[in-house]
């Protein structure tokens, strides 16, 4: 009973075969295609800044509807590395450009990267809101986080957490290549390595969320990530020195020890759409985004070193 079926299935089958021949056409032609009527700006880098960058992109649609901004995170180092290859238009970085990176850029493309200070951030040390501790010194942070550090319990810091039997400190950190991790290592731990065994989470928000649900946890993240269930500690450079809270004013007068400025970099002096975008970022509208995200706008930030 080999009845040949009506023609629809056969045509379908042929369609599938026809599609087989369409692949090369599709692959080759498509790579060159894309949209030409719109300008696409590629923006990549710091995870600390990715949320700000996202709101910039969102808000900029209102100012320039024909410009599409693609925002990716990945970390400061990755954004800069992509910039040096000419793969992105703008790199976000929560640290300064290294000398070696500038040299690399000149070698690759013949252009020197241009940097813009677009705001500032205080790296806040977070604990659970029920934790009675209110301030911490950099020395204590080193004992807690650095390789060879001895502190493993809250009682060793003279802190009793209410309603908790096991007061082992749950150290929350970031994955090892984020700019935040590197900044914390450099400025809080004096470039010593982290002690292994901390929960190295993949997102700034995840850090704050875990601290917010764990009474015995401590973690660090940008000040923009604060929520109601966590508390930001005041930080003192050393025992006896006055502890400073991460506020806009403290970032401004550089009294907070873990403050850093936020930058965007371009390859060479920006032109056209990219320049317009950066100008907009530095305008009051763009700076309001920075402030709304919980960071320090550039007018109040320390001048670029």
């Amino acid at each position, binding site marked *: 009973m080999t009845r040949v079926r009506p023609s629809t299935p056969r045509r379908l089958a042929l369609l599938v075969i026809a599609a087989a021949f369409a692949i090369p056409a599709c692959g080759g032609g498509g790579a060159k295609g894309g949209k030409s009527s719109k300008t696409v700006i590629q923006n990549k880098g710091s995870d600390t800044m990715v949320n700000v960058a*996202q709101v910039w992109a*969102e808000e900029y649609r209102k100012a320039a509807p024909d410009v599409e901004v693609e925002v990716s995170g990945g970390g400061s180092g990755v954004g800069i590395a992509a910039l040096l290859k000419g793969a992105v238009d703008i790199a976000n970085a929560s640290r300064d450009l290294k000398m070696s990176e500038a040299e690399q850029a000149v070698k690759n493309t013949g252009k020197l990267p241009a940097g813009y200070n677009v705001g500032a951030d205080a790296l806040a040390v977070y604990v659970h809101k029920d934790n009675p501790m209110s301030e911490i010194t950099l020395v204590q942070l080193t004992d807690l986080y650095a390789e060879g550090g001895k502190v493993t319990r809250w009682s060793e810091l003279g802190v009793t957490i209410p309603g908790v039997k096991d007061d082992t400190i749950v150290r929350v950190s970031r994955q090892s290549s984020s700019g935040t991790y590197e900044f914390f290592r450099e400025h809080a731990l004096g470039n010593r390595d982290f002690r292994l065994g901390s929960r190295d989470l993949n997102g700034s928000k995840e850090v704050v969320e875990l601290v917010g649900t764990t009474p015995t946890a401590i973690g660090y993240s940008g000040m923009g990530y604060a929520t109601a269930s966590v508390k930001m500690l005041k930080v003192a450079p050393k025992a006896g020195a006055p502890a400073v809270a991460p506020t806009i004013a403290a970032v401004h007068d550089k009294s907070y020890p873990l403050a850093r400025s936020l930058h965007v970099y371009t390859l060479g002096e920006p032109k056209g759409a990219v320049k317009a975008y950066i100008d907009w970022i530095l305008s009051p509208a763009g700076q309001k985004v920075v402030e709304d995200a919980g960071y320090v706008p550039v007018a109040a930030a320390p001048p670029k070193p």
Partner: protein
Amino acid sequence: MAGRFAKTPHVARKEIAESIARGIFGLMSAAMILPLVLIVGYLVVRAWPVLSWEFLLDVPKRGMTDGGIWPAFVGTLYLVGISLLVSTPIGVLAAIYLNEYAKDNWFNRLVNLAVINLAGVPSIVHALFGLGAFVYAARFGYSILSASLTLAIMTLPVIIASTREALASVPMAFREACWNVGATRWQTVRAVVLPNSISGILTGVILQVSRAAGETAPVMFTGAVFFKAVERGDLFPYGLTDQCMALSMHLYTLATQVPNVKEALPYATAVVLLGSVLLVNATAIFVRIWLRNRKKW
């Protein structure tokens, strides 16, 4: 009193053991249902406040803490669609080769092993491959093209397996009848085998859609972005060389990276992703059952 057919203690013990075994295994099977129902139920309940068509069609707002998921949803459609365009023909033809052409020799056993292994390669290794091969070596850059090709190779075994199954279910007698009237191998495949298995192949394509839509790692490193501004409801916001948002990665970023997000938002994103995938799968299952009932041989 005990009749002639009363159970001996031995038989009674046997039967008790039997019912215990049945009960335990039955419970173990029932334990499969529970997580599915609980997970879907819980996610839907948590997502309820924001679930609406508006949520699907709207763009993310206020730093992705509010609004909808349109750019991510349409991005996933792009990735899945293009990967399908590439993997369906290759997969179907590969299955035709394996089922209709290949002789049973060492080489074709190797092909079989390769298909099995391709299915077993971890998704993160596919991501590494996509990054090394498409983004860098082929110079497609971070783009929809790179991500779709990565997904295509990853989902290839799905379509090969289900197409083979469909082809194999066409009785040998059909082919023999066709050969006997003088048709070539390809004419037989086209006139008899494919028409009789096209719906089975369709099931495979559907399953492939569901697999591709849910994958995160392979697109995260090859072409998906954190955010891209797109018009509400715009069906064609991306070009092949652009990067795009993807639903699966959007869920990951909402859950780990975006502060102060509206509580129901990540749940609703999870529900849309899960809902689409389960819907697509249910369609495949339905097609299969419908087919089985229709088959006349």
